[in-house]
């Protein structure tokens, strides 16, 4: 096993309560719940294992990035893609929400980069509101979010990346040109980077692989680059060994403890892209 292993010492299983469910454009939903422990301890890029149903179908919890925290409240951004997410987006204020977290390795913040280049594809937006806030809090003056989606309605709203941090630039692209620049968000990465930059990316595997390829070719590569990955999870806390992903240099790393955030060079990109599509939830 390679790479830093997440700290489980902060993780706790908490019975929370939904306080708000907001529908965004294009099917995205932001769920906010009272989860004091998670809200107090989660760092950008960390996730929680959620359950909002009884019985055994669905059986396992589902992993979601902590998108935002405010006082005792935590927010998650998601979309209905299967049984579990369907139940989650159907929650109403007052409903119980069980959360185990924080889990996983978050995005590294130290040393605070001079420039932060955030690359978000579709639902890959989820961890970034919290990251933006934390970077700004720590004094990163130059935060730029490259936000891409297939079409305008599937873009995560720029204001939600910023949440009051008005100096943060959000540059949008859509595959169909319906908003922002037409094209792939990865095309903007090269221009946004310099050797002072730290890159943070989250989105579909092909997008992340394109980011990795782009960075490799740069004359002045960023000082560091991290991606947040997904794997089907059994436990989320390192005991089932179910969430293996291909590591550079051979072998696997556990997405839940040696990820989900991973240094870009520590990922076996061809191996990741070769995974069957069902692997990508």
């Amino acid at each position, binding site marked *: 096993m390679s790479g830093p292993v997440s700290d489980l*010492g902060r993780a706790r299983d908490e019975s929370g309560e939904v306080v708000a469910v907001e529908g965004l454009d294009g099917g995205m939903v932001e769920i906010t719940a009272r989860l004091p422990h998670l809200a107090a301890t989660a760092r950008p890029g960390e996730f929680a294992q959620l359950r909002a149903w009884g019985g055994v179908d669905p059986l396992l919890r589902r992993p979601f990035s902590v998108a935002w925290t405010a006082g005792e409240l935590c927010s998650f951004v998601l979309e209905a893609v299967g049984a579990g997410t369907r139940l989650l987006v159907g929650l109403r204020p007052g409903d119980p929400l069980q959360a185990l977290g924080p889990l996983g390795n978050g995005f590294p913040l130290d040393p605070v980069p001079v420039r932060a280049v955030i690359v978000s594809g579709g639902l890959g937006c989820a961890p970034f509101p919290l990251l933006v806030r934390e970077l700004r809090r720590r004094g990163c003056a130059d935060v730029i979010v490259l936000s891409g989606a297939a079409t305008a309605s599937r873009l995560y709203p720029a204001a939600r990346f910023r949440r009051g941090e008005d100096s943060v630039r959000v540059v949008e692209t859509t595959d169909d040109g319906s908003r922002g620049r037409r094209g792939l968000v990865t095309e903007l990465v090269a221009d946004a980077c310099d050797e002072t930059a730290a890159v943070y990316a989250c989105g579909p595997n092909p997008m992340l692989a394109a980011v990795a390829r782009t960075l490799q070719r740069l004359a002045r590569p960023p000082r560091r680059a991290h991606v947040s990955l997904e794997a089907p999870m059994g436990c989320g806390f390192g005991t089932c060994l*179910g969430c293996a992903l291909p590591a550079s240099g051979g072998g696997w790393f556990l997405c839940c403890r040696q990820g989900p955030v991973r240094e870009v060079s520590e990922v076996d990109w061809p191996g990741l892209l070769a995974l069957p599509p069902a692997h990508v939830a």
Partner: protein
Amino acid sequence: MTAPDLRVDLGRGLILPNPVGLASGTAGYGFELRQLIDVDRLGALFTKGTTLHPRDGNPPPRVAEVRGGMLNAIGLQNPGVEHVASAYAPEFSRWGVPVVVNVAGGNVEDYLQCLDRLERAEGLAGYELNISCPNIANGLDFGRDPAAAGRLVAAARSRTGRHLMVKLSPNVTDIAAVARAVEEAGADSVSAVNTYVGMKIHRGIRAPVLPGRGTGGLSGPVIKTLALAAVAEVRRAVRIPVVGVGGIMDAGDALEFLIAGADAIQVGTATFVNPTASLEVLDGLTEIATRAGVRRLRELRGPALPAMPPAGIEPASTG
């Protein structure tokens, strides 16, 4: 109502403080779960299947959820016996929970070398021989062939004075025959069952979700009805203690295994759903036993067995 005596004497010196264990492969080597729950309150911790050499495990995806259960195809990823014996075992000796090392191998020699190394380590409560993991070379031969299982266990028996539990595969024609064979070969107890071979099909890509042959081991509540039948059958076949495992989610499920003849139980997949599940099972069972006014858990089995005539008198009936 006096508190019941929860201890379970599995034989050859292995006395569990209570009947609730964590199932192999669902609690790693305990280090992660200890950070989440008070593992030391439990009856036993069964480690991840440990092999002579370190193993990387199978390519992803390794897990897939199905209705009421999950498939796994981990492929016995583990750091190898040397690491377990030298780095983990010293930790185990400091823990309150008895740690039983689940041992797997591709041939008899692998198992024996693995045991030999573990014998030199302190802090181990015993071994659970995993003869039921169909994922390495001839691994499945042992679990599926009573004679081969007997030979393996006899050889293992000659190497250790520690408690030797054998984990049975349910993917067999006659689990009772395997149970009898390992009992005769000197096993101190048996655990039943390991996972069932299952397949999930993805309708979109029109292929199995898991790679390779597409199959994985099915666990979780979906196997409880089958595991109960297997435990009852093993119970009738042998005199040594039986540890029941398969789909236990709560104390009521655990009670059903005790009624079916188990002396102790293991909680597996439930821990993924709820890390505290095993402790809740323990507390629930304690309450059930207290209410029922029994002194020892074994009394809960009570009226169940008379209703089950010995094998051969009346055939199991379906159709």
